[in-house]
């Protein structure tokens, strides 16, 4: 029997659960959010229900897709990082401008971490893919770089267990969980 990866409590070791956890995203989704030139937007909320938001500049997903990390520029994301540290809530939207294909992944156990080896390369690859994508719809590379500029400042990873994922491509099915949208 499988169970949602979210059925685990945030700090509960995975070995406590007898069921095999299952990610709400499949390999195709994982490839989409890590390699396509998608726009990445990261949201969280404070304990007193004030939402926070920032732009992501890349994404990493582990092979079993039970853990995802989005990269954000610390200086641009102070409220959001405070909220993640405090409430551990996260919502991330990935949207491909030319096709409007959009999906949202949510988590309840987010933590702020330092970048891992290879993450700088992931961010560079993301920058190239996003520039190419925006180039297709008429935005020059300088514009795209300004949009996802880190200014040389600190970049951190927000790691979380995807516990729910939704199709958010505009249209009547927007908002449906991915499992049903497939």
């Amino acid at each position, binding site marked *: 029997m499988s169970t949602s990866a979210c059925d685990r409590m945030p700090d509960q070791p995975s070995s406590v659960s007898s069921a095999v956890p299952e990610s709400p995203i499949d390999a195709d989704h994982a490839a989409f959010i890590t390699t396509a030139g998608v726009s990445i*937007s990261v949201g969280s909320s404070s304990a007193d229900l004030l*939402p926070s938001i920032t*732009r992501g500049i890349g994404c990493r997903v582990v092979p079993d897709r039970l853990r995802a990390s989005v990269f954000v520029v610390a200086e641009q994301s102070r409220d959001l990082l405070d909220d993640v540290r405090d409430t551990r809530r996260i*919502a*991330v939207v990935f949207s491909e401008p030319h096709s409007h294909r959009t999906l949202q992944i949510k988590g309840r156990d987010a933590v702020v971490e330092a970048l891992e080896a290879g993450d700088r390369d992931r961010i560079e690859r993301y920058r190239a893919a996003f520039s190419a994508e925006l180039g297709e719809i008429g935005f020059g590379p300088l514009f795209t*770089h*300004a949009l996802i*500029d880190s200014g040389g400042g600190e970049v951190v990873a927000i790691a979380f267990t995807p516990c729910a994922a939704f199709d958010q491509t*505009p249209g009547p099915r927007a908002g449906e969980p991915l499992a049903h949208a497939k």
Partner: protein
Amino acid sequence: MTQRLDVIRDCLEGAVPGIMATCAADGTPNVAYLSQTEYVDGRHIALSYQFFNTTRRNILANPEARLIVTHPHTGERFRLRLRYLRTETAGPLFERMKAKLAGIASHTGMSGVFRLLGSDIYRVAEIERIPGAALAPPPPRASLLAALRAVSARIAGCRELDLLFSDTLDGLEAHFDIRHAMVLLLDGAGTRLYTIASRGYEASGVGSEIPLGQGVIGVAAREGTPIRIGYATLEYAYGRAIRAAAEANGLAAVLETEIPLPGLADSASQLAVPIRAAGRLLGVLYVESPHNLRFGYDDEDALVALAGQLGATMLSLQQASELQEEVLVPEPLAQPAAGRPVLVRHYAGDDSVFLDDDYLIKGVAGSIFWALVRDHVESGRSTFSNRELRLDPRIRLPDLSDNLEARLILLRRRLNERQACVRLEKAGRGRLLLTASRPLTLVEVGQGGARPDGACC
């Protein structure tokens, strides 16, 4: 507040979609892309409500939101803290957003998917510039304030209504680089607009009509609000809308399409600004361009200011001309014209007039023309005064607010454009001179009379 909302209005044009975070009552955050963000005033913003989705559920339960908007040229980003106040589902703001959304939908391949259910209004509590690089903005095309000043000065110098319209359109071209424009006036019954002057089209379209509520122009007039679209959309293509309405309404309405509305076939950006004065709508100033996103918030501001001055000047020139009208003295009878007679037909039902088989005009301008040619033929008169026309029971001026002089301008231009055998010239203050180069044979056709075939196809 570190930034004023009006200073970052360009970020709301939607070149880069806004991204918004909300959270549910249990704290679960949600992020959404926005099709449309609309500047309302210095402290309020409106967002399009298109689907009943998580964002919608969240803001109804917890009104707090955060939004990131991006400058379309510099890439600068601003984070706004918002508080949801209310949703409007009708009225000027709603119609403005509905029209703009139709353009966005068409541009992004989302026609049929995007439909505005409401305009969600938020108070902007805080604006923060997100640290990061910014590109240099492109140099401005022109100083809009300098352009406004120049055209404003021209308007202030106008002494005649006819020149007011042509000077305004000339000024738009010379100082705003707006090459396609028209002025339409509201008829006295307040149900339709007629074109009084235009620039930049193959045919002037003077005399063409558009019902209130149709297309960008008709909606701007009905709602009394500027309507601005950055991308072409069939939904608001006025020519198409009018043709469809005419087809649905049968033969009588077909005449409305007899004089085609001027308009760019490849129009992309459109801006219709109501002309208002003394608390009422006088008409619409309309400009368009084949380029996407040609008109921004600042262009809209400039043209709204200009339309205000245009309206006030129209009223004052109209009043001045009424005060100055002279009483006519008896005149010598006109020499009868020679040549083959022209058949002038008048249809009582809608006051439409045909010269032989050519449609000339209908409505108030048609009844004025009919009265003039009757007096010309029956009693040999050639000179007429505005004052007598205004009081003439045969001319069905819908009410006192109807602008007789504008109708005369329209009639004069139509006759000139048709190179008709009858012409009207100004002959002193508030006086008109009618000349006919051929004899006129008048035929009055009652209700339901058959029209010449050529006019109805």
